[in-house]
């Protein structure tokens, strides 16, 4: 529960404009996204913070502000953010590409699909290959594939780009592919694959698969979500998503049993 007085939106907008104080900007960018601000200055000011990424070298404080701005732009759902976010898919900074993809997934704008898809078209060996000396893959495949599924524009090209990742060696990448393929095709056999991952020995994989099932809105997953060896809080998050997609009162009943 809030222990401090709530910040006022006008103040937050003013803080976001103060480029001399990146820590105030950092918090302001987060706040606007969290509060789903409708202030007319919010999106223009958030977009302005992205300019800092064009300089070499990028100032690390301003990079942090820009990351929060990218996340906020995803939450605010303003179509003006689409082109600037699509441009960030070309960034040499892996995290920028990852966060831009997540926010584009939230915007659900079909025009972003070709740019996102292009980054995974080189397949599991290239885009999905490991970077040397790093746990990261060459591309933020999980975020990119999830974004394609969330946007929900099904085409032969998109399916062909995602399908190889259903055989990726990493279970969370496979989960992202199953999730997107279920969202795009409605074919429940992908959901069955996700349910299989709920039995994975690693809790991290079980949690990921659980949230992926929720995101698909596929009500066939309800009982498997309830039965999974995952903490109730996460089951509730997954079921919330299921309930909001399906509006099925059965899902509310399952949630009542978990609270």
């Amino acid at each position, binding site marked *: *529960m809030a222990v401090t007085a709530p910040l006022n939106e006008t103040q937050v907008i003013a803080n976001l404009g103060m480029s001399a104080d990146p820590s105030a900007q950092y918090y302001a960018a987060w706040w606007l996204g969290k509060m789903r601000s409708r202030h007319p200055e919010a999106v223009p000011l958030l977009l302005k913070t992205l300019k800092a990424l064009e300089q070499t070298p990028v100032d690390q404080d301003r990079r942090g502000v820009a990351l929060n701005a990218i996340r906020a732009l995803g939450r605010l759902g303003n179509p003006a953010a689409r082109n600037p976010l699509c441009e960030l898919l070309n960034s040499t900074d892996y995290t920028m590409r990852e966060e831009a993809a997540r926010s584009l997934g939230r915007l659900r704008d079909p025009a972003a699909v070709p740019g996102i898809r292009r980054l995974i078209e080189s397949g599991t060996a290239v885009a999905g290959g490991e970077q040397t000396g790093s746990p990261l893959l060459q591309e933020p495949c999980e975020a990119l594939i999830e974004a394609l599924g969330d946007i929900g524009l099904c085409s032969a090209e998109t399916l062909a780009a995602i399908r190889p990742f259903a055989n990726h060696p990493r279970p969370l990448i496979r989960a992202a592919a199953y999730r997107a393929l279920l969202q795009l095709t409605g074919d429940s056999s992908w959901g069955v694959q996700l349910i299989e991952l709920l039995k994975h020995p690693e809790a991290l994989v079980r949690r990921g698969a659980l949230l992926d099932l929720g995101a698909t809105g596929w009500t066939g997953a309800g009982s498997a979500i309830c039965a999974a*060896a995952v903490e109730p*809080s996460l089951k509730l998050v997954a079921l*919330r998503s299921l309930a909001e997609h399906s509006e099925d009162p059965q899902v509310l009943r399952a*949630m009542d049993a978990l*609270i």
Partner: protein
Amino acid sequence: MATAELTAAFARLNRATSTAELVQATQAIASLQDPEAAETLIKVLGFNNPAVANVATEGLIRLGCAVVPKLLVNLDARNYGARAWVVKVLATLRDPRGLELLEHALQADIAPSVRRAATRGLAELDLNNSRDADALRRCCDGLLLAGRDDEWVVRYAAAFGLERRLQHSNVSGSMTDQALALLRQLSSSSEDVKVVRLRAQLALQRLNAE
């Protein structure tokens, strides 16, 4: 004095290293349904392992209201996960001795999962006799507070809880008015989270108060 079976089961728990072994050892302890196992089962709640904690929680619930005083004493204030499970056990046992702890958890706990479980407890504590009018008022006050929580899941639990109290308890007229007003607010567009609106609408439907 613990029985030989319980002592053996404790030893098995101490030797366990994997989740599967911990779950089996905890199941073995829980299946004995021995009140002496309560402290150990409470300790297991703090292992930060949901599969194991779930088994221990069920074991404690099976031991019944006799574990309530031990739960109140052994609550580990520093372990969020453990606290959530303890509040869950108290909420499930519906023992009125848990009221103060549940009220406190709802008002002061920073973990939404703990406030959520506390809200459920306030909805379901057994308060059947008329002497409990004050406790019922406190439960309803708690549910009204939960309905204004920052976290959606606590507001969801409040909608569930207000429905239950209005359906099954002898709630005073003015409290009923406040509860219905809150449910109407949670079902309206002033509530951001769709699933909370859906749950509050369902509550109003079941109460024939749309």
